[in-house]
């Protein structure tokens, strides 16, 4: 068997020359950005030379090399078929048999014919080569995208949330109002599940960029919850000098207001319907399923309460580095973004359905992992942009969404005498490691899972971090969500979390030790405690709990700042409505670590 090469796609800014050490008649060349057929002497295809080791290399390989305007050879790839290894396509650099690697292949089986796509990252001065199955250059159009990984800690915007969390630290009604708003997610999930595809509106923002929206209208306009999925290209990917087709923005003022809210407090947008992509290498990248991806855009899911952006999750969208971002040159931004957003929405639909259908079985963490995996698989899809098709593999693009929307639903399914929702906000640049130091009554019914498929609960709430949104960096804090339930008819919930606070910017140096305690008795008022001086016998902290709606502890830091640890309840006793409306002995608590 012999491998047959049919075409060559030059996705570089250089002239590309193609040669066969076995047959000089096969030689051809391609100008920058041009595809050529490699028909050889008889106009059909070229046989790829067989080579299984260094002694055979020089007389048995093909060569593709790039030449700039000054006639400098910028790079060259040698490739061949390894006849001692099932005709596997292999390659090396610079005309030598060294550091030999298998050629990345896309679009299926290459044995029926393939082409070569060569790309170049001018910022990093790195070239890449890949084989695409198919006998015409159109075969290369299955561009492999992937969503970046997102752990189970939702991102929260520092600009949007910090003040609201600080206000809710007062406890009592302030905490209750905070949770009431968030628990509306229960109704939102029910609505999307009932409406299915009809729940999602394909729309555009004021500039005509694609976005997907689901809106649950309450009794009044002030009782609306929406989810908006949008995207931003990374810096360097846009060519605003090139006009593209104009799309009509939505005329419905309600949708306009919701979309505007989704963009509120976000940095200068790097999106514009008129723009085409430059194809230049953007900053950063990520690894997914063993492959490296160059980040080309960020996809953001925003939850909007009334007209306030309450929470968002941003994940990177990458193109396989073996393809190179140059291939996106000239692509219209909206043509790329639209199909990607529709794919992500399909994943969200599976996620919502999974939440309701799967939660009663298994541990909460296992269920979360299972439905996230399902949603990620659903996200895998094919899209199209101007005659070019592409595929997206999952990543954990929706993991954070799972945690956020699961909590009120888990609460709704709790059949125990009493329960507690605990949202832990880390409003610092420090890592927080938590351990369940002691538990007298109750069980931890859900917590942040470590990854898809893993039932293990994460133990470190990450420090705040700056992420790229559009053109700029924005500070994002991390949220860890837990739910606790009583496990008997005659006891409540009583436990202590020990906290170790460390500085990741200082090699993980210890910043402080702390502990928090909650006691929700079967009878009587709730109590709580927070301290930066945990007793040597941690159970002694129960003796320090206070019957109150809020407690705070402070610790002076060496850098002059003060660390504050606050714990709250919404109520001290009695029955209160679950997110479903059913009355229960359910309580909501905040834990907030902040610096000032």
């Amino acid at each position, binding site marked *: 068997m012999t491998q047959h090469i049919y075409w060559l796609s030059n996705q570089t800014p250089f002239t590309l020359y193609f040669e066969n050490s076995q047959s000089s008649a096969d030689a051809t060349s391609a100008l920058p950005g041009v595809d050529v057929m490699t028909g050889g002497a008889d106009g059909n295809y070229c046989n790829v030379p067989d080579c299984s080791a260094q002694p055979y290399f020089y*007389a048995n390989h093909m060569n593709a090399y790039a030449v700039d305007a000054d006639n400098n050879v*910028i790079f060259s790839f040698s490739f061949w078929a390894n006849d001692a290894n099932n005709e596997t396509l292999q390659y090396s650099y610079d*005309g030598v048999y060294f550091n030999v690697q298998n050629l990345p292949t896309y679009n299926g089986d290459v044995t029926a014919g393939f082409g070569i796509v060569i790309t170049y990252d001018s910022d990093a001065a790195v070239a890449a080569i890949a084989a695409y199955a198919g006998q015409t250059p159109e075969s290369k159009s299955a561009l492999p995208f992937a969503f970046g990984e997102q752990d189970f800690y939702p991102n929260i915007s520092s600009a949007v949330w910090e003040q609201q969390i600080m206000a809710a630290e007062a406890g009592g009604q302030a905490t209750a109002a905070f949770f009431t708003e968030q628990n509306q997610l229960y109704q939102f999930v029910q609505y999307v599940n009932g409406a299915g595809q009809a729940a999602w509106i394909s729309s555009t923002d004021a500039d005509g960029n694609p976005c997907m929206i689901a809106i649950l209208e309450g009794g009044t306009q002030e009782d609306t919850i929406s989810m908006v999925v949008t995207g931003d290209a990374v810096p360097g990917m846009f060519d605003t000098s090139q006009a593209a087709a104009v799309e009509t923005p939505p005329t419905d003022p309600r949708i306009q207001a919701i979309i505007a809210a989704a963009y509120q407090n976000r940095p200068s947008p790097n999106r514009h319907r008129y723009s085409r992509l430059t194809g230049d290498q953007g900053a950063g990248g990520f690894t997914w399923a063993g492959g490296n991806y160059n980040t080309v855009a960020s996809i953001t899911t925003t939850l909007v309460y009334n007209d306030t952006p309450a929470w968002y999750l941003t994940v990177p969208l990458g193109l396989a580095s073996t393809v190179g971002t140059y291939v996106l040159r000239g692509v219209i931004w909206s043509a790329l973004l639209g199909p990607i957003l529709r794919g992500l929405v399909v994943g969200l639909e599976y996620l919502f359905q999974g939440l309701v259908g799967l939660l009663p079985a298994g541990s909460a963490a296992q269920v979360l992992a299972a439905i996230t995996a399902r949603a990620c698989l659903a996200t895998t899809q094919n899209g199209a942009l101007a005659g070019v098709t592409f595929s997206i593999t999952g990543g954990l693009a929706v993991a954070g969404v799972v945690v956020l929307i699961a909590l009120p639903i888990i609460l709704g399914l709790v059949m125990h005498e009493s329960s507690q929702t605990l949202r832990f906000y880390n409003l610092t640049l420090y890592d927080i490691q938590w351990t369940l130091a002691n538990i007298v009554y109750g069980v931890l019914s859900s917590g942040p899972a470590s990854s898809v498929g893993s039932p293990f609960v994460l133990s470190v709430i990450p420090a705040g971090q700056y992420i790229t949104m559009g053109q700029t960096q924005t500070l994002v804090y991390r949220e860890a969500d837990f739910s606790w339930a009583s496990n008997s008819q005659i006891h409540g919930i009583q436990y202590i979390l020990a906290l170790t606070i460390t500085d990741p910017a200082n090699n993980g140096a210890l910043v402080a030790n702390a502990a928090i305690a909650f006691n929700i008795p079967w009878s009587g008022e709730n109590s709580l405690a927070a301290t930066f001086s945990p007793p040597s016998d941690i159970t002694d902290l129960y003796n320090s709990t206070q019957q109150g709606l809020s407690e705070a502890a402070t610790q002076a830091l060496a850098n002059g700042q003060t660390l504050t640890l606050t714990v709250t309840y919404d109520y001290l006793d009695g029955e209160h409505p679950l997110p479903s409306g059913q009355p229960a002995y359910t309580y909501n608590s905040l834990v907030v670590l902040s610096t000032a």
Partner: protein
Amino acid sequence: MTQHIYWFSNQTPYTVYFDNSQSAPDATSAQPFQAVMTGGANGDYCNVPDCSGQQYFYQYHMTLFGVDVENDNTVVFAVMFWANDYQSEVLQYSLNGAYFNVKDVTLGGTINDGDPFGMVLSYDSDSGPDITAVPGAAPPQGAGAG
């Protein structure tokens, strides 16, 4: 006649490998800033392949290529050279595995056809690799022969 190469001196910070597309036993390598003899199979010298055009290139050239062993064995550069049998065996070279932008090798002295010589290989991060043919059957003092 045929040009005979007796040694090469690696004046680069990379490990340099020496290959002959005509004779696999000629292969050898030199650590950074070291020189080695290129005696080939019989220990005396290697015949430099003749090449007078692109169609002969792949099977008729020698290669000196630098490898960054501390960076995933990345091939940093490759210099291909040969003797042009249509031009009085003048030594010529090109870069990065292609017969393109072919240049004559700089001579560090008179090298008549068949005279013993060696190649001194240097590297500049801005301008790339460079080779000079130096007459003699052994590396001169200071050429890293050691």
